[in-house]
């Protein structure tokens, strides 16, 4: 038995490590490369109804403690992404998570339907961290628990039995309440967290924000404690499996998210900070850790930092 195997919403992942959306996620070959590096599941770049070139560059800006990104939801469109997913599935047994977004609530449902008409990913992930074009302040859907719940229902209705994960942002009144709303609306899993902020960095010489989009989401090492806390709260709030994501670079970081209650662990920026070896290294560490603690699976570690443990079992 593979001690690292986990099950997220009925889908078996051979390792808890998941490629986070938006990183090396545009093509079948690139997803395959990450799967070969040791990911237990891979998530595509979020795709929407139409092809988008995204923002001009700089759209990804490393700084000392992580990076800012404002890629602007560049994506080839949902049909093209379906072709990449199909190619990936033909080439790899690793489950693929298709990430979708919309600019209105209805677009989420349509994106799901159009994608599923062409391909059947292992999971659908709903990226609600995109600006809601019909909101007054252009706020992301993620800031509004009711909107997240409505989108969850819409997508579930078109998902044809494919399990649905909702990817939450910390930038909301309460991530636990949002998770609850999504769970009530039928979500099968929660992914948390998306990048934080947004943030801005200014070049003092040219006196301008450096990102072409001025602001961008914060990811990487800087946000690890925020992700751990988010997973902790969500684990106490809902009995769903959690793909804990944010700031994982070292093996201990992944373990922290699992102890906080995550079933799987997303890695994005860590690929930049530590290279693709990050997957293999963390897998090896977790295998060792289980052996040293005399455990046969990650089950005993999941949520183990809670005293008392959160009420319900969250895996499966």
């Amino acid at each position, binding site marked *: 038995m593979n001690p690292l195997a986990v099950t997220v919403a009925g889908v078996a992942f051979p390792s808890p490590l998941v490629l986070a959306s938006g990183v090396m996620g545009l093509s079948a*070959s690139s997803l395959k*490369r990450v799967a070969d590096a040791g990911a237990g599941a891979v998530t595509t*770049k979020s795709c929407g109804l139409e092809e988008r070139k995204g923002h001009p*560059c700089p759209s*990804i800006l490393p700084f000392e403690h992580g990076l800012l990104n404002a890629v602007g939801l*560049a994506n080839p469109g949902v049909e093209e992404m379906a072709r990449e997913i199909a190619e990936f599935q033909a080439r790899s047994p690793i489950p693929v998570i298709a990430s979708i977004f919309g600019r209105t609530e209805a677009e989420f449902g349509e994106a799901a339907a159009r994608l599923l008409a062409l391909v059947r990913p292992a999971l659908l992930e709903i990226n609600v961290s995109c600006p809601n074009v019909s909101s007054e302040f252009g706020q992301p859907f993620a800031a509004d628990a009711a909107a997240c719940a409505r989108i969850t229902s819409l997508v579930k209705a078109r998902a044809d039995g494919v399990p649905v994960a909702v990817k939450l942002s910390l930038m909301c009144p309460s991530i636990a309440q949002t998770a609850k709303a999504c769970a009530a609306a039928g979500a099968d899993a929660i992914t948390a967290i998306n990048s934080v902020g947004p943030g801005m960095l200014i*070049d003092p*010489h040219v006196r301008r924000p450096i990102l072409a989009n001025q602001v961008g989401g914060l990811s990487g090492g800087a946000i690890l404690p925020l992700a751990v806390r988010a997973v902790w709260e969500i684990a106490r709030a809902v009995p769903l499996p959690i793909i804990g994501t944010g700031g994982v670079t070292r093996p201990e970081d992944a373990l922290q998210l699992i102890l906080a209650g995550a079933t799987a662990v997303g890695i994005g920026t860590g690929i930049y900070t530590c290279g693709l070896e990050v997957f293999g290294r963390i897998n090896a560490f977790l295998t060792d850790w289980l052996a040293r603690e005399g455990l046969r699976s990650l089950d005993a570690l999941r949520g183990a930092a809670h005293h008392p443990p959160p009420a319900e079992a969250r895996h499966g």
Partner: protein
Amino acid sequence: MADVMQTVPILEVIAHQAGLKTLVLPRILDAAPGQFVTIWVPGVDEKPFAVSGDDLETIQITVKAVGPFTRRLLECRPGERIGLRGPFGRGFTLMPDSLLIGGGIGNAPLRLLAQRLTERGLRYTWLVGARRAADLPFLSDLQRHPAVRLFTDDGSVGRPGSVMAGWTDALTASPTPPRLVCGAGPEPMLLAVREAARLHRLPVELSFERYMKCGIGLCGQCCLDGSGLRLCVEGPILTEEQMQSVTEWGLPHRGPSGRRPAATPPASRP
């Protein structure tokens, strides 16, 4: 961290030909030949460029105007600040008895390679090709350069014809075969070099280009179909072994959305 954006004043602008200039920048980073940097023109965009030369205090990039960004970049004056990140990717191996083959602006990274080989006292031959003289930077330097052989399609300088013709000559003229073939230029030329090198069983390292955004291996924009090599990290210089893992040779390149345009059907088809 060199990947962090830093802005620097342009120290000097060397105009070569129309739409072809070299920008001289403070040496805030060290690049190996073949490695590239990204250049940010504040308020405009950020794009990748190979380092084409350096000295103790400067690095140089050589830019050919092909679209809005490069045109705007070539309007920059000395003193104006632009942003710099890098160096990114992996460069050419420094090998004695190298054969350098460049096409047009592809001669920019080879210039730094030639400089490094000269600095280390390593022998090399540099076949410089272009469609016409007006496509070549540092033309008079190249004409005086002892290791350089010039070719232009229109014969405006050097020998007339393709640099690939010079290739056969170079191989037959030299008593010992080159120990490494280093190429940079338009992709069809590079694929021809690869083919020829395979024929002669010569090791090659070729510099490719794809649409790039991050330069640090995250956005996935420059991943090559097949093995998923990230050209910005594992490239832009590829070995034969790396090239073999790629399945997209000859296909149109993915654009900024990640989509690959449909291949235009050959015009001759009825």
